[in-house]
């Protein structure tokens, strides 16, 4: 626990002088110290690891590489100022919860405890790495226009695929919890901050570092294993593998801490009257996702740690010849990996169920059932991981059980669909861009979910396993589901964050391009898989050539459509800048009752909540919250025993 804090001293400090800003702790020092730390510790590692056989070759000194990454992390965090507070605490100085909020624009380049600043940093970081991963995908489709490895050398193609997969998985798992979660959860439950502001900032900067460490793999020869990092291939691979292991471990830590922070916030910091049955469904989505993150990420961390030991100090966790077993990795990785794919689904559920009532102008149809469905998904996702190993020869006699649990998940998922359908019933639907994305989410996720039934059925899975069918399936659930929902949420909440609405017409052009070309890209890949095209190959049966060329072209159009989003951001947020007003969507949710952009302290007075934010069409419904009440201490009821904390 690096966060032993006590009562905060929230006296606003005066803005620092320019000189203070320059010499203070910020990103520039972080980068400089990270570089210094890498080389110093790499040299140290060569000294330490010299006597280990596997480290003897000068070009394969994994221990030194890991030392270097550790040094880089240390320098990065020192430069960003993450060690000042723990050290002052170790000297017994008093606790505080506020840091770096007075630095003007420099807030965005350093440790800052304002959850809104961190969320915006997250937005930029995730968009950036999403762009890197997406351009990788464009290059992959370029390679696949030929049925033999020609455009990109075979080995580098594997690195490309691995970079794309790992980058997307890492960034998308932080992609909603980080930006939207950090920004909206305190606003939606009526709090001024997250429970652990410094931890919040730490997770962001770890995520950023992880992204660049992963990219640095190509300086180290790349890695050939895809995002699953299967052993023993990952044990024999080149030093680029160390970058994969280290960056994924950083993400694991970050993910775990994000979840911890959000759970603690929701449990303890709800405003008076924000009872459990009044929490917005988006917050429930964040909560269930966070539970998965807190419990699953540590297992990933342990697995990566074991692989790192195998590569550096010659332990034999995964080497069958020396008492290890490759199945150990498969089990640990997928025990994380399957909750991970629901970490990538539940936020989508939360976003679309939050958007639907606003534009259907109706209450959420069955609030409690929706929450129950989310918890059902979260619970079941821990019991299905071996369906990734149906043909691997591990615990083959348990396959009926895992087939059953896997198919069970379609029940709570179906509930989410039922709620969406019920909310649309006799509604007054307005087709704004966020609503279009929410509806597209149901369209895509339906196809993704139904294709999952084929994969969960073992006889069918024998053919589809490890083929492009799987690839199309999880792109339908992750991109068609989470990414569509996230972009919808982005269109929906950006006016609240920046104060400027995104352009509707441009947004609709973007939506239709993205929707059409997404389906044109990934639906044919189901056929490619059934026709016998394995994943992650740079060459394939010539009879599939026309299909792949078609897919490549529509994939590039899909990439172009995302430029529409970028253009929309630049146009409306940088050039035109028409103020959106506090509540452009006429939503009843708490965050929309605040001015946009949200002031530094969120609420002048902690509001008193009157009802759940879905009272559309209910005559003489009370306002969602009273803001003018005389000061009530925040979190009053939430931390009494019945509040469920102790």
């Amino acid at each position, binding site marked *: 626990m690096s966060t032993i804090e006590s009562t905060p001293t929230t006296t606003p400090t005066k803005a620092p002088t320019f000189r203070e800003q320059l010499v203070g702790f910020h990103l520039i020092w972080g980068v400089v110290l990270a570089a210094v730390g890498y080389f110093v510790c790499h040299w140290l590692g060569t000294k330490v690891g010299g006597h280990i056989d596997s480290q003897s070759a000068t070009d394969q000194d994994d221990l030194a590489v890991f030392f270097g990454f550790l040094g880089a992390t240390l320098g990065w965090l020192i430069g960003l100022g993450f060690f000042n507070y723990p050290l002052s605490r170790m000297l017994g100085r008093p606790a505080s919860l506020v840091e770096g909020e007075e630095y003007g624009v420099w807030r965005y380049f350093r440790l800052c405890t304002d959850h809104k600043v961190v969320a915006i940093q997250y937005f930029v970081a995730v968009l950036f790495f999403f762009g890197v991963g997406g351009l990788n995908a464009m290059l992959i489709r370029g390679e696949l226009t030929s049925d033999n490895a020609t455009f990109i050398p075979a080995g580098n193609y594997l690195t490309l695929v691995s970079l794309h997969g790992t980058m997307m998985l890492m960034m998308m798992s932080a992609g909603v919890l980080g930006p939207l979660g950090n920004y909206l959860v305190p606003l939606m439950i009526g709090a001024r901050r997250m429970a652990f502001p410094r931890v919040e900032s730490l997770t962001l900067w770890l995520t950023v570092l992880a992204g660049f460490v992963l990219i640095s793999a190509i300086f180290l020869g790349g890695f050939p294993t895809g995002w699953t990092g299967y052993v023993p291939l990952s044990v024999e691979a080149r030093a680029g593998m160390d970058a994969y292991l280290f960056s994924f471990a950083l993400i694991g830590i970050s993910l775990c801490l994000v979840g911890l922070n959000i759970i603690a916030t929701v449990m303890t910091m709800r405003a008076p009257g924000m009872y459990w049955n009044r929490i917005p469904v988006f917050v429930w989505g964040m909560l269930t996702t966070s539970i998965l993150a807190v419990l699953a990420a540590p297992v990933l961390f342990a697995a990566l740690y074991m692989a790192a030991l195998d590569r550096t100090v010659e332990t034999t966790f995964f080497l*069958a010849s020396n008492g290890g077993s490759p199945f150990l990795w498969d089990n640990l990785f997928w025990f994380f990996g399957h909750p991970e794919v629901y970490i990538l689904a539940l936020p989508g559920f939360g976003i679309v169920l939050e958007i639907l009532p606003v534009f*259907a102008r109706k209450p959420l149809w*069955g609030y*409690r059932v929706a929450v129950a469905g989310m918890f059902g998904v979260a619970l079941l996702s821990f019991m299905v991981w071996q369906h990734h190993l149906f*043909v*691997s*020869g591990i615990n083959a006699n348990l396959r009926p059980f895992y087939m059953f649990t896997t198919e069970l998940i379609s029940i709570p998922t179906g509930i989410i669909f039922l709620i969406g359908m019920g909310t649309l019933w006799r509604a007054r639907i307005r087709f704004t861009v966020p609503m279009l994305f929410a509806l597209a989410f149901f369209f895509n996720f339906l196809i993704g979910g*139904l294709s999952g039934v084929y994969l969960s059925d073992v006889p069918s899975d024998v053919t589809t396993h490890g083929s492009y069918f799987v690839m199309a399936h999880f792109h339908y659930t992750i991109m068609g589901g989470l990414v569509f929902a996230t972009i919808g949420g982005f269109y929906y909440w950006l006016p609240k964050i920046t104060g400027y609405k995104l352009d509707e017409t441009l947004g609709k052009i973007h939506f239709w391009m993205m929707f059409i070309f997404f389906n044109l890209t990934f639906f044919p890949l189901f056929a490619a898989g059934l026709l016998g095209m394995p994943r992650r190959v740079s060459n394939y049966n010539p009879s599939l050539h026309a299909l792949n060329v078609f897919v490549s072209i529509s994939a590039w159009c899909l990439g172009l459509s995302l430029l529409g989003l970028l253009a929309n951001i630049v146009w409306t947020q940088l050039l035109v800048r028409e103020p959106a007003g506090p509540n452009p969507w006429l939503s009843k949710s708490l965050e929309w009752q605040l001015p946009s952009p949200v002031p530094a302290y969120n609420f002048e007075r902690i509001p008193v909540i009157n009802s759940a934010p879905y009272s559309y069409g209910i005559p003489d419904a009370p306002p969602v919250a009273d803001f003018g009440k005389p000061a009530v201490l925040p979190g009053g009821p939430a931390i009494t025993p019945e509040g469920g904390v102790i």
Partner: protein
Amino acid sequence: MSAVGAAANGAGADVRHGRRILIIWVIANVILVPIVIWVVGPHIPPYHASRQSTEQHNVNVVLTALATPVLLMIWVYFGYSIAVFRQRGAEVVDGPPLEGDPRIQITWLVATTAIVLALAVYGTVGLLGSSNGAGGGQGPTPLAKPANAAGALQVQVIGQQWMWTFRWPGYGGVETPYLVLPVNREVEFHVTSIDVAHSFWAYELGVKADAIPGNDNVAFVKPTQVRSFQIRCAELCGLWHGHMNTTGRVVRQAAFNTWIAQARVRYRGVTKQLPPYSHVYYPVPDQRAS
């Protein structure tokens, strides 16, 4: 379209909209489900090259036939709602504040649960009963065996970076770089690897079994057609993963006998050097100093 008027008078509107949606859905099913089964169905891979791939083909057809009504229901519902319940014009009107109806929710739960249970039972029967594991790898102690497993032709599949080789314990432990199988005979694959993880995928035969070092992965197949089939690697195994392809052949018993006899003669010299036949060969993680 009298959407506003329809939505205005409560319960009656519910019934009317519900009936319309139901009718559209039924019509769509009547048209599409037969097409899926009898027009699209026969073309759904994999093919009828073995009893296992036939089973997989049937499963795929059944799942597609079951998925179609579900897909249509959601699509029809959403399409109808989007068309009928759309609010045109600038003014923002609130819809009726309908709360969740427990009866509908319970009905939905029961329906989905029934479908799921049916699928699980169907899959389990297909896996353990009719198709002896459906051609999937079952690990060292297979649960679903063919009736005459004892008489099955034993073939060891050895994955290595980056080539498949095949060992024939019934024929003096000879090892061949090609796979030839007799038709209409139970075959028992023992899939293993001597370096990293591979996955043995005989596409037309509907066989897929991961090759994991230190593990003996058994898969059963009974080829029913004289034809050739593609062999691929379905688990990322390094540089030439995409090139670990070869073509196998299913031939008549007599042709198989001559082929294996020739192979024994041809590889006589190297067979003497092979290690004694075993279900697993542990790779030594040697780091040879150059």
